[in-house]
């Protein structure tokens, strides 16, 4: 297992996440896709730390922070989705156009 395998996995994951963000209509799907992209980044951090600077932990630490941040983000994001859903009765992003001039 070399660094390239990890990076390829991470790239595929990021691409899948990006694809999901761009194509999903369901706002929850979009949130999930964002998680995918975050995790792709996490894999990158961990892989670079393991192969380029073995014995150091800054990359691992950053990943812990990102996971924490993602959890918080999901909390806020889902709360927003819930609030919007209560108002608009829709989970589809194309219906979220009340700020459109």
């Amino acid at each position, binding site marked *: 297992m070399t660094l390239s395998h990890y990076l390829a996995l991470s790239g595929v994951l990021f691409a899948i996440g*990006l694809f999901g*963000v*761009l194509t*999903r209509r369901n706002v929850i799907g*979009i949130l999930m896709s964002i998680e995918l992209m975050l995790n792709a980044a996490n894999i990158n951090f961990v892989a670079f730390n393991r192969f380029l600077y073995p014995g150091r932990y800054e990359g691992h630490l950053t990943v812990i922070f990102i996971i924490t941040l993602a959890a918080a983000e999901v909390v806020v994001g889902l709360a927003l989705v819930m609030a919007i859903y209560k108002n608009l009765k829709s989970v589809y*992003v194309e219906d979220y156009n009340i700020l459109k001039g």
Partner: protein
Amino acid sequence: MLEYVFILPLLSFAAAGLILAFGRWLPLKGASAGIAVAAWGFSQALLLFVKAIRGGITLPYEVSIPWFSFGGSQATLGVYVDGLTIAMLLVVTAVSLLVQIYSTGYMHGDPRFKRFYAYLSLFTASMLGVTLTSSMMVFFMCWELVGVCSYLLIGFWFEKQSAAYAGKKAFITTKLGDLGFLIGLLCLFYATGTFEISKILELAHAGAIPAAVAGTAAILLFLVAAGKSAQFPLFIWLPDAMEGPSPVSALIHAATMVAAGVYMVARLYAVYALSPAAMNVVAWTGALTAFMAASLALTCFDLKRVLAFSTVSQLGYMMMALGAGAFTAGMFHLTTHAYFKALLFLAAGSVIHAVHTNDMREMGGLRHKMPVTYITFLLGTLALTGIPPFAGFFSKDEVLAAALARNPYLFAVGAMAAAMTAFYMARALVMTFHGKPKDAQKYDHAHESPAVMTGPLILLAAVSVVSGWVLTRHEMFEKLVNFEGALPFELHHVSHGAVAVFSSIVAALSMTVGAWLYKARPEIPALLREKFSPVVEMLEKRYWLDAFFLKLVDIGDRLSAFMFSFDFNFLDQVVIDGWAWLTLKLSRLQGWLDDHVVDAAVDVTGAATLSAGRVARLAQTGLIQNYLLFVAIAVSIFAAIAFAG
């Protein structure tokens, strides 16, 4: 005493107002106020005259107060008194006084008696203003006031159509002359920079006025003088002015106002003396007037008109004398003429008052009924014709001698006029007072006038008899009224004695012939009248001057009518309306262009912007995923570029 001379016109003016406002409650319906003021004025003038003769006062005397200023110049109110002024003052006040006394009888019972006296006082005030003023501007104002009074008094009996017409004619004709006044004054002002008479005279004496400007101003001002003083060709108004009451004729149209023109020429004589051309114009106009007017009097049957023509003729004499360089002679004749012509008019008024007609053909034999009027009229006639030793003899001989000294032709014209004068006066005298009564009814009703009328007649007759002799004693008048400047031409030396003898003989002969013809052989004049009917017609039509002026008015009318039609049909209809039509059309075109070109361009710009916006909006979907897609694409592109580079 000179210090208070300015009160004279003001007092007369006040009297006019007083009579008009309170005349009803004054003695003699206000006449007393006018007479009192005139009497006081006369006493002052007489005192001044005596003092001036004795050398008790220094002349010229001038005092003035500033009135208003314009530019760098100052207009003033003031008096300027010299010998000329005093001579004129004496004439104006004396005649005014006697005429006012006389009018209490003549105008007795007239419904507008009070107004008559107010006008007389106003006239006297204006005339005194003309005489005394120190500024040509005030002179002009008083001059016009005099003209207004003349108009009011000629048309005093305005119920009579002819009187109203005569007033208008007099006013308009003199106004025609007055055209030159302002222009002439401005010419003088241009040359001298002042309206002060004393300064103008000073500059003229010093020769500081260019001869061309002086000549122009002098000739323009002479036109004015010709209007007021009834010189050729503007004398046509004076015979008609006889429609006014006889005292008015005596005061205004014999003694004072008509002499104002002569007075003005004399006042500005230094200016005239700068220009030989102006002097010649004055002299020859005067001579022509003297001759024409005398000839016109020959065929006239209206007693007052005969006297009016005679006045015109004598005014011509005065102008001739002034033009010939004889300043003193001209003013001397003015003075004596004022007295004897006023006398003649008042005597004629007395006759008319008695017989109620002006026509001499309805008179005759009146000397038995009106002895005082007859004697005074006879004395006036003798004075006018220049029979020694009456006043006219002295002054007329001076004038004729001056004419001979200047030019023999002037003298010839003057002498012919003198012969005619004697003839027509003899004719008037005989037709009025001698022979058999032609209208028995009128003759029976005739009676001598009351003492208030005969009194002034007797006084004036006395003055007419002696004034010529008295004023020539010790060269009294010449010392008072003299021109010290240089004349623009040489005068011949003439023998005054020879001229005097010659003219006296001519006058006496002519008078005798006239009297004999009309008294003993009245058929001869009638025969002559028939024989020379074209000449008579010419004289009765007054050399067609009236027709000439009416034609002039007619031409003016036609010209105005043509101008009106040109204005209405061409200027209004074609030029103004055409211009409006063109403007309208141009505006329409411009409006269309505005709508279809300018506005369209603006609209197209707007529409293009709108369309561009619509296209650009397509990219703005409002969907966050789309934007993200663009970001992803862009990042991919940049990444590709980064990797490729």
